[in-house]
């Protein structure tokens, strides 16, 4: 069953795998920049970046998506995250080049993690499409 016609997705690598976000949620790809960290207790949020005067939180999802590996991050994928009615830009450290693709979003299968909203069937791989709102450290278990 297909959920929708072809849609655009941004593929991003983390460790040895690639994941995808709906392209409409991605605003830019940025080079690594100074991470400003300060004491906090929010899991996965490692600090903030300053992008053209805007404070952008860094949502380091690698420990959930890439497991215990700690791959070197090379870029920040900047995407929108929704908090109730508010939308906020978030920087996601990724480990390599990102790619835009058009593909059908296939339904998720039952045994996938809750943060996987669907799958993309690409020529050499099946890519999980991620829902940032559902990513949490517990999801890594």
């Amino acid at each position, binding site marked *: 069953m297909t959920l929708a016609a072809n849609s655009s997705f941004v593929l991003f690598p983390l460790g040895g795998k690639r994941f995808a976000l709906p392209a409409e949620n991605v605003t830019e790809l940025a080079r690594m920049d100074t991470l400003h960290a300060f*004491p*906090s207790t*929010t899991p996965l949020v490692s600090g*903030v970046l300053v992008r053209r005067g805007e404070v952008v*939180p860094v949502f380091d999802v690698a420990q959930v998506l890439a497991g215990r590996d700690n791959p070197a991050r090379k870029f920040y994928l900047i995407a929108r995250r929704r*908090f109730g009615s508010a939308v906020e830009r978030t920087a996601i450290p990724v480990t390599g080049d990102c790619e835009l693709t058009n593909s059908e979003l296939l339904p998720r299968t039952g045994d996938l993690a809750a943060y996987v909203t669907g799958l993309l069937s690409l020529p050499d791989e099946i890519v999980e499409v991620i829902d940032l709102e559902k990513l949490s450290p517990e999801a890594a278990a």
Partner: protein
Amino acid sequence: MRLARQKKRVQRSLGFPVILFTIGDNIFAIGASAVNEIQSLQGMESLGSSPRQFGKVRHTLTREGRRYWVVDGNIHFGMMPTRSTRVLLLGSHPIAVKVDGIVRMTEIPRVHPLPQAFHGEERSWYLGLALIDGLVVPVVNPETFLSHYDMSSLEQSFPVPAEAQRVGA
């Protein structure tokens, strides 16, 4: 008339005076108006074995007859112990905050709201974030070092000795 009003507004928003202080590798800002005095650690008195619930308050400091509860900044912000050298005596409550050092006083043009992505204790710790010389500095909320409940519980657990009350009076 209109121009004059606009000018006034600009002047008002130019600067929010803050004191920059360090704990470990971190720099924090606190509104200068919230701080009465900055002191060395001299004269701090241990509470002995303070109850577990007051883990971040292990000392008191008495200045001009007023007893301050000394909040350990490292514990408050969940940081590893470092070498404290100063206490910030707050004005609105009898609270002193133990910190490593004072950097300087400065003015910040604005306080950026803490991004929504932060949903932990930091939402109460900080009023927001300031950009100072290319650094992002959290602006601490002086109201959240100890709650009124914490302070009254501390007062009950460690009443001021009668002799000290007479001296203070």
